[in-house]
């Protein structure tokens, strides 16, 4: 019998997956595996048995620098004074354009410009 300690078998891996070409990679869950090859081989069937999957990442948990509890509490709060970064800060333009009988080039409009006339 080998004397190797079994607990090395239980390494923690975080599992991420991508559902479609248009979707971002998303965290799924974590699993225990002895190495990344095994982790990858088990990931899909453990967490995505009933959904489409195009790509899977496994990352050793110890390689992820995540926020600590304090950092989450302290670094993720923002003052609500940043309208200038958002369209919300420019909403008055709708009325202006309306006066000039023009439509507002809002998100819906701009993202619809996939095609232009040939």
């Amino acid at each position, binding site marked *: *019998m*080998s004397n*190797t300690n079994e607990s090395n*078998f239980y390494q923690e891996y975080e599992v991420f997956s991508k559902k479609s070409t248009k979707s971002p990679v998303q965290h799924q869950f974590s*699993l*225990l*595996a*002895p*190495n990344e*090859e*095994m982790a990858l*081989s*088990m990931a*899909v*069937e*453990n967490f995505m*048995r009933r959904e489409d999957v195009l790509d899977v990442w496994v990352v050793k948990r110890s390689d992820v620098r995540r926020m600590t509890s304090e950092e989450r509490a302290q670094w993720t709060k923002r003052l609500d004074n940043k309208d200038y970064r958002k369209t919300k800060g420019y909403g008055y333009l709708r009325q202006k354009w309306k006066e000039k009988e023009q439509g507002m080039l809002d998100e819906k409009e701009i993202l619809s410009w996939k095609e232009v006339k040939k």
Partner: protein
Amino acid sequence: MTVNSAEEANQDVAYSKALKELIYQLADDDFLISFRGSEWLGLAPHIEEDVAFSSITQNTMGHAFMFYQLLEDLGEGEIDLLAHERHPDVRRNGIYLEKRNGEGNYLEEPYYDWALTVVRHFLYETFKKVKLEAITKSSYKPLANIAGKVLMEQPYHLAHWRIWMNQLLNSTEEARDRIEARLNEAWEEFGDVLEFGFQATEMEHFDLIIGEEELKERWMDEVAKTIPNLPSEPLGKKFGSGREGQHTEDLDQALATLSEVYLSDKEAIW
């Protein structure tokens, strides 16, 4: 030569005989190995593997289902009858695939051997890949289509068992010894899996599949990619040929288990 439907196939007695023989092999192989897989459920070396292994088992039983469906279409009887009621003499799975998972049984003292499981699945999935690849060019189109479909999800199976094989061969001495012992054993028993049985000549003649020898070579080449030091002896078939209806007590045990409820009330719809 192309045959597009069951009706067409059945017009030529010699053709349909060879065709059915081939499909029975495919169906029974997948059914028996997935039955052995179902006995493992809940008992794998760790939980994540249990879940992954079960998906492979389910996929494989799903493949058996599709092959039995082809037989049903050819007039052989309905799927569950084919799976549950056929006598061992007409079962066509390779004998190595009916082999018990180890000592004991799944209900009591299941001293199942993971080394056997890894070796068996690795050898079998490699075999299945080369056999199905050859069948994608089969003259019987419904079968060629199913082979193509099965090959879509089967690469994951092979990759999974290849990882296990690789890792256990390259870790502790104990693991290597266990794998090598099971490999040597497989070498004595796997021979008939690679055979086509009574209709071998006809299968090739009717372009249902490539010849036995060629398949065997392809299989050996594939296996050697993962296992550099293969046993040097020629492949044996210690217990005879499952392709010719010879089987062991292990098949009796498997059939008694898998058909226990089915046979408890044959009038019933379950």
